[in-house]
């Protein structure tokens, strides 16, 4: 194992998969010669050339549609978005086309492509550069949604996403890019299956089910709750939002009896509501207190530091909510 960054392992996963399978190619804005706005695709252009690392014009609908066409005959495009907010410009191609193609064609055509980029708040980018789109994408059948929190998970899951025969939305987080974590050396082959959660901290009193950057915030909240209040939180990192590993969540709740679902996308009609609903539908007897969800408040995301901090469902809100629940 070595210590490395989230950005580094994504770059490695892309390169390793492009070396392994010549159908894999990258498309996006500034991804080629420049190496990506966040340098995630650096060096790929030099190694693979302009046919496989394609600098596109700012035409998200157009190149997303082109990726569908190429994927329909077995290519494996990876589409980079600088900010996941921009994916909404390509909404028709994602929701009406990419997600539905396999079904509409009765399974005759499948679309193996990856849409990846960073989302999330915390850096004061405001309403159109800070949203989390996980719940939105998870609402639609036909696309898988993955949002890893650590470098180890990010590399293994990106490889699985690229090899998957379905469209996968791979969500990075701007607060995670420069975080460091353990990972096997570059070129050491491993994958992590899509749809499998991972318990990142064991605890006996309450389960927080979350994903992406909120995992790191939940781990900090858990430390504080343990130190100051003697509450031991179990942190279940979902890693994938669709398919959702509800079994691992419920196995944890069987132990703790209390469930809080947390994410940075909006709380209303969000993944947290889905997790809580599934818990009540499948195993209401496990819940010793009402299961709750915590997500972004229903406002557009403001720029000013105190305003943004006010609405983020991070450590402060998690601690407060857990204390309320454990009252």
């Amino acid at each position, binding site marked *: 194992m070595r210590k490395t960054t989230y950005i580094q392992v994504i770059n490695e996963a892309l390169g390793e998969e492009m070396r392994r399978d010549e159908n894999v*190619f990258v498309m996006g804005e500034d991804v080629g010669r420049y190496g990506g706005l966040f340098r995630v695709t650096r060096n790929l252009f030099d190694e693979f050339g302009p*046919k*496989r690392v394609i600098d*596109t*014009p700012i*035409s998200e*609908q*157009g*190149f*997303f*549609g*082109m*990726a*569908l*066409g*190429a*994927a*329909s*005959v*077995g*290519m494996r*495009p990876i589409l980079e978005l600088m900010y996941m907010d921009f994916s909404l410009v390509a909404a*028709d*191609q994602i929701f*009406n*086309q990419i997600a539905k*193609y*396999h*079904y*509409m*064609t*009765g*399974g*005759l*055509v*499948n679309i*193996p492509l990856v849409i990846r980029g960073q989302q999330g708040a915390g850096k004061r980018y405001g309403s159109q550069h800070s949203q989390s789109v996980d719940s939105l994408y998870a609402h639609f*059948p*036909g696309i*898988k949604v993955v949002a890893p929190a650590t470098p180890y998970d990010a590399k293994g899951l990106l490889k699985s996403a690229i090899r998957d*025969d*379905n469209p996968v939305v791979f969500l990075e987080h701007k607060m995670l890019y420069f975080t460091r974590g353990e990972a096997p050396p570059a070129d050491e082959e491993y994958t992590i299956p899509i749809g499998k959660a991972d318990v990142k901290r064991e605890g006996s009193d309450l389960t927080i089910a979350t994903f992406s950057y909120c995992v790191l915030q939940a781990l900090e909240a858990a430390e504080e709750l343990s130190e100051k209040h003697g509450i031991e939180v179990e942190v279940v990192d979902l890693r994938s939002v669709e398919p959702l590993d509800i079994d691992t969540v419920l196995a944890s709740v069987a132990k703790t009896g209390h469930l809080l679902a947390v994410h940075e996308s909006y709380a209303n009609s969000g993944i947290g509501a889905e997790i809580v609903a599934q818990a009540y539908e499948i195993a209401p007897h496990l819940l010793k207190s009402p299961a709750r969800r915590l997500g972004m408040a229903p406002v557009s995301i403001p720029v000013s530091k105190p305003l943004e901090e006010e609405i983020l469902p991070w450590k402060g809100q998690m601690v407060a909510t857990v204390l309320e629940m454990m009252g």
Partner: protein
Amino acid sequence: MTKKSSTASADDTPRSQAKLSDIPANGVVSTTTDLLSSQVEIAFDVPALPAETLAEMYRQALLIRQVEEFLLKAAEEGKIGGAMHTAIGHEANAVGAAAALNPDDYLTCTYRGHHHGLAHGMDVGRAIAEVLGRADGFAGGKGGSMHFVAPEHGMMGSNGIVGAQVPHAAGLALASQIRDEGRVAITFFGDGAIFQGVMHETFNMASKWKLPVIFYCENNRYSEMTPTWRTSSVGEFYQFARAYGMESVQIDGNDAEVVHAAVTQAAERARAGEGPTFIEGITYRLAGHMAGDLETYRSAEEIEEQRSHDPVLVLRNRLLERGSSEEEIAKIDAAVEKSVAEAIAFAEASPWPDPAMAYTDVYRT
């Protein structure tokens, strides 16, 4: 003082737009070459096709017509749910293009796409079964009329969202270019589709990257119930391509031989690495936009006038001009009638799908 208003409704005079009757004998109105050239007339060869090719195109066009007439009637009688857009009057665009392309070339098209699927070799019985929502439909009834697909024939899908299939074809062309396969992709869209932003994004990328793709506009002059001149700032649609440095040509889309020639040339250019071509085929839908269209937006005289350019008739007359006999044509007619009747019988006898099939094919497993 009164101010002159310049609202959209004030502009109520039809702008010049090519009609089939304006198209000269060679079937080609004009072609443009590059970004800065003014519109120039270029000699455009329309070679006479061999008798067998003409006869095969006629057979396909007639078959498409008869299938469409059956489907339209069935929809109007309420036997088929959903929207039914037929290609009655558009047949030459499909059969001319299909005959000009290789079997492994790619195609995408619109909800008005039965003619393309059938011209590209889709099984007729399974196609009709699909529209009827039966188990033997090629997609088991999940796609229906607007989502024809036949990957084994390079037919990668028709689409219910106006314009969405156009980048798909460019992506198929990109795959061919990356893999260096020499395959060409053709995409069909309507005159109304030109005004979707995604079209222009795709034109730009395809031209910049010299993708082996053919953009084929089936200009029937109506976007649903609105004549396109009412919403377009540009008179002739093939001119849009000029802004993207693309070759473009306006042709008689009701003459399969002309369509064949234009698509052949475009495919040659594409395979030679010279990039995309925009073809504007002037055509006319002889039926409504879809089953149940009240057609209050056009006159009976207009439709009658267009019947003299009926693409099936054009092909039939061409065969006679080139020496085929009435008996030879009657033989084709009889064979088509028989195969369409058999296909309909097959489709109508096909069972409904098992309801459990509603849950399959969400993900490839």
